[in-house]
Structures are given as structure tokens and as C-alpha cells.
């Protein structure tokens, strides 16, 4: 196993730049997820680590070695592809064993390794089958097996779950995480699905337009997103954002800017030093609770009209139209909301995040 170090890594295609000099330290044995919308440079970054794309600038190290100019095979990494890329003309055994094609092990040793990997992944009874006779989840396991058999320095996963159905995806997520716990291997995992990122990663790297926006543990990103993009991207449903304006009297919302929703004392100290008076107020739906008669001490109360209520079984998400925008709020499953009803929700002072409208950065 090994650490991976990206130092000002750049990727250009002709005149366009796909990755703008990113820095990232991945520790030995760490599970890092690169997440972002399509075109954010996450797959390109992964492919540069794999050696499938040339590096236009910067230094890439795997362990202590600079690998910029090395062929993929010299880097001793393994990769699992979105489309599995298991060979249809070979059996499961041959596919897994193919990872050892260039190894100098004896035939018996190779066979033992394949059997061992097959056992770990629960493929022992399928070793003589061809990929056509396997389910999607089994195929993905074969692809992982081919990566594992070589005992590489690091595993790279390029959106490996995006072709699976929702149920299988959840199951494979768990399996990959367990595999990581068991093998203790360095894993770099690329996905556009924030649920995958949140549930598997030791650390998440949020990328957008070829730049890293934020790196941190899942809960760190969830609780203190560095900017509006990350705030919206991490968490489901996405964080509510309300335009607001700061004045000497306090904070007022959108069209009602004149009306003060939060007095200065309720605002965090950092916000008063914000350069711009235009801020976005971010509140997670999970932090908005129904305002019951007699509740006191809430920092912010939102009054609106119910547009849609979405029961999820364990909870109900209420889409609320406000004079200054719309929000999603979480209500207990038992609560009943009908479209057109008036409803009020409250948020605690600590759960509110403030972003600068201009820079989109977290202010407080």
C-alpha cells in the first residue's frame, strides 16, 4: 500500500484546461472519494493517477516515487472501470487471473491467488462461468477481483456503481467499504453521487470545473461546507438557500428585505464583518422543524404555503413557498400537510450557514 501525492497537477487538452493545478495528499490506506458533477475533472484526475492520461503539469507521487513518466503497469495500481471491462471471452477464473498476466508467480501460486480472491468476493462457485452468465453485481465483483488479485499499491474506482440498479448499488457500496476495512488498501473512488461519497469515504474531495473546492471528512463537509456549491451538492435533499440582505437592523429576506427576520444579536459574529451585505442563508431541510405552538428560542421562523408534501415513510419532506423563495423542510411522518395549507418552520441558530452572494464562500 502507498500514499498518493498530487502536487499542482494540471491537465490541458490543446487550449482548454481540464484540471487546474490541484493539490491533494492521499494517505496510505485512506479511502478518498472524488465527487462532483460531470465535467468537473474527477475522472481525468483519476486517469492521470492511473497513467491512462498524460500529466500536463505538476508532480504525481505514488509512495515516494515520482510516477509522471511511468507506464500504468509500472505504477502498480489497479483500476475498476464503470463498464466493468471484464473480458467476455474469458471465464471468471481467467478474468481474475488476468490481473496476474505479467506476474512471475508459478501457475499453482496464481491459481491459489485466484481461488483466494474468489472466496473473499463470494465468487467461488462461479469461477468457470463466463461474464454473460453473471448478474451485474457479480460482474462488478469480478472486476474488483481482477484488481485485488495483484495486491496493488492502490485501487482506483471510476464510477463503478453507476450501472447498477439502486438496490444493488447500496449493497455494493457496503461491500466495497467492508473490503477496504479488511484490506486496508489505499482507494481513490470517483463518483458523481454524493450518497456514495458520504457513505464510503474517509475523506471527500469536492471538485468543480477542474478545481478542488473542498477536502474533508463527510460530516465536516455536511456541517461546514466551504461554499454554496458544496453545501448544495452534499446532502439530500439539497440545502435550502435563501437570498437575504444585511443591514444595521439585522437580516431581511428577498422581497421583504425591509422586514427584519433575524436581529443582530441572533447573527453570528463573523457575519457582521462580511464584506458584502448580500448573503445567502443556507438551512438543511433536516434542520427545519415544524413550529409548534409554544415553541420558543428558535432563531429563525419561516412562514409559508405548502406546495407539495412528499412522504418518505420515516419522514415527510414539505415543499414550502415563501414570499422570498421556496424551501424544503423535514416534518415527522405522522404530520399531514395538504397543498395550500399555511405552515411554519423554525431553524436553530447553530444550524444556519451564511454565504457571501458574490464569492459564494462560507462567511459564518
Amino acid at each position, binding site marked *: 500500500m502507498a500514499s498518493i501525492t498530487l502536487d499542482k497537477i494540471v491537465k490541458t487538452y490543446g487550449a482548454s484546461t481540464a484540471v487546474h493545478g490541484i493539490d491533494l495528499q492521499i494517505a496510505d490506506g485512506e479511502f478518498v472519494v472524488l465527487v462532483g458533477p460531470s465535467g468537473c475533472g474527477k475522472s481525468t484526475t483519476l486517469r492521470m493517477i492511473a497513467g491512462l492520461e498524460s500529466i500536463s503539469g505538476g508532480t504525481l507521487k505514488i509512495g515516494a516515487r515520482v510516477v509522471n513518466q511511468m507506464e500504468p503497469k509500472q505504477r502498480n495500481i489497479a483500476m475498476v472501470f464503470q463498464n466493468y471491462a471484464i473480458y467476455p*471471452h474469458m471465464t471468471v477464473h481467467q478474468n481474475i487471473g488476468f490481473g496476474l498476466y505479467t506476474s512471475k508467480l508459478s501457475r499453482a501460486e496464481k491459481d491459489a491467488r485466484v481461488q483466494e480472491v474468489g472466496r473473499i468476493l463470494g465468487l467461488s462457485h462461479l469461477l468457470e462461468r463466463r461474464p454473460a452468465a453473471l448478474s451485474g453485481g457479480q460482474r462488478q465483483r469480478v472486476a474488483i477481483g481482477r484488481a485485488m488479485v495483484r495486491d496493488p499499491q492502490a485501487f482506483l474506482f471510476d464510477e463503478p456503481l453507476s450501472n447498477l440498479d439502486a438496490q444493488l448499488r447500496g449493497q455494493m457500496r457496503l461491500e466495497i467499504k467492508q473490503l477496504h476495512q479488511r484490506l486496508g488498501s489505499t482507494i481513490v473512488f470517483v463518483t458523481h453521487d454524493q450518497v456514495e461519497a458520504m457513505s464510503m469515504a474517509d475523506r471527500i474531495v469536492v471538485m468543480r470545473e477542474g478545481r478542488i473546492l473542498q477536502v474533508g471528512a463527510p460530516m465536516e463537509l455536511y456541517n461546514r461546507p466551504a461554499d454554496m456549491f458544496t453545501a448544495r451538492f452534499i446532502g439530500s435533499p439539497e440545502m435550502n438557500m435563501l437570498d437575504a440582505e444585511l443591514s444595521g437592523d439585522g437580516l431581511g429576506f428577498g422581497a421583504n428585505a425591509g422586514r427584519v427576520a433575524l436581529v443582530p444579536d441572533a447573527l453570528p459574529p463573523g457575519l457582521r464583518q462580511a464584506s458584502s451585505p448580500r448573503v445567502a442563508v443556507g438551512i438543511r431541510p433536516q434542520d427545519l422543524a415544524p413550529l409548534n405552538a409554544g415553541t420558543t428560542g428558535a432563531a429563525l421562523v419561516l412562514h409559508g404555503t405548502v406546495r407539495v408534501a412528499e412522504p418518505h415513510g420515516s419522514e415527510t419532506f414539505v415543499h414550502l413557498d415563501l414570499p422570498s423563495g421556496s424551501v424544503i423542510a423535514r416534518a415527522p411522518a405522522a404530520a399531514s400537510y395538504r397543498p395550500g395549507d399555511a405552515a411554519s418552520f423554525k431553524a436553530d441558530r447553530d444550524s444556519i450557514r451564511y454565504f457571501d452572494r458574490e464569492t459564494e464562500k462560507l462567511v459564518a
Partner: protein
Amino acid sequence: MSRSATAPVPRSIRPGAIIAWTCLFVGGVIMITPLLFMFSTSLKSAGEVFDLRLVPANPTLQNYVRVLSDGRFLGWFLNSTLIAVITTVSCLFFDSLVAYTLAKFRFPGRKLVFLAILSTLMIPTEMLVIPWYLMSSSLGWTDTYWGIMFPGLMTAFGVFLMRQFFETVPDDFLEAARIDGLNEFTIWWRIAMPLVTPALSALAIFTFLGNWTAFFWPLIVTTDRDLYTLPVGLSSFAVEQSIQWEMIMTGAALSTIPTLLIFLFFQRYIVRGVMLAGVKG
């Protein structure tokens, strides 16, 4: 309620289908008639050849005995087999190697090279025969196997066909193999080639048939009767002692056997969807 309880309803047949079937039937008859006459004539005696009945009045295998006991026929048969097999193997190997490079590698001038190869498809063989002949005679290739084979060892058509198929092989397969440490040649041979077996089979059939039936170039480049290919040899039945139709037809009937075998052998590989199993997307 069981289906048999209801009266059978005749399935309605669309008028378009009737026209299509009629056309196909007529086409089929037109295609198969010469073949039937070939077999029929091969079973007739010399005096009966111009009796155009399809079923010979006195069928005989005498022609087959004569043709097969004639040493020349077997020699020509072997010449044709050797030439068709070598050119087919060569085409499968070199055409797909070039095609793979053009389909899967990005290098300057790649499109130009492909266009240049394609453009040779526009030139008819008749135009190429003279330069080929001049080249062969100045290099001493006339009346050699090499002289007969060399124009067909690589074909632009094969490159074109294989390139189209290699384009459909997902890059993931090749990249996975690259990460597993295979060199580019091994990736082509062990990964890409097995994935395009349907195309290889089609190309094998085309190339084999093309070379098996090739007439014009072998006729020009050979004067030694021992080097004749089967079509050239058969045609020589026609020129030397009056035209022996029954012999020509017998030779032709025999010459269809390898082409049938080749087709039967390769057609089972022409199954689409082999590739779809390993990749989802």
C-alpha cells in the same frame, strides 16, 4: 377457456409481404439455377450436355472419376487451397493489425492514412494488373506462388471492415489490460481480436472466396500449367481440346466444396452480441 375451443382464424397476410416473398422467391430461383445446372451437367455424359433437362437421363459419376484421376486437377486444387489459405491468414492478421492501430491510437495523420487506404478501394483491379505485372516481371515473381499471392496479402477492404469493428470495442477493455501490464501487441492479440471474431469470420469468408475464385491476375502472372489455380485450370479445359462442358462443370462443382466448408465453419462465429456480455452501458 382453451384456445382450441375457438375456430381458427386465418392469419391476415399483408399485400406487402406477398410482394416481398415473391421477389425473394424469384431472386432465389435465379441464384440457384446456375448451380443446379452445374451439378446436373457434371452428372451428364458428353453427348447429353446440350440436353437441357435438369435431371440427367443417364446420371453418371464418370466425370468425377476422370477429373479426380487427372493429376492436374488435384495440383490446381492444392495451388488454390494454398494461395487462398495463406492470403486469408495474412489478411486477417495484417488488416486487423492496421485497422486496430487506426481505430484505437491517436496520432497525427491518422485520418489521412485511413483515407489513403480507403481511396485504393476506388481503383479497379484491371487498372492495377499492369503495374503489378511489370513489378512482378522485373522482380522475377512471375510463375511463383508469391507472384500470385502478393497483391492480396493485405486489402484495403479488410482494413476498412476491421476498423469499423474495432471502433466498437470499448476503450475500457484495452485500458484495463494496459493497467494489468500487457504490452500493446498482446492487448491487440489477446483482448481486441477475440472481441471482433464476428468481423474476422466475415473477413475470412470474403477473403477466402475472393482468392479461391480469383481468375484474372493468376491467369496473367502464370504461364506454368503446374502453378495454375483452379479457375485458371478449369478454363484451360475450354481452350485446348474443344469445350468440355461436363468436365468444366464437374471441376466447378468440386471447387465449391471448400467454399461451403469455409462458410459452414466460420458462420457460427458470426454471432453478434459476443461483446455485449462483458460491458454494460
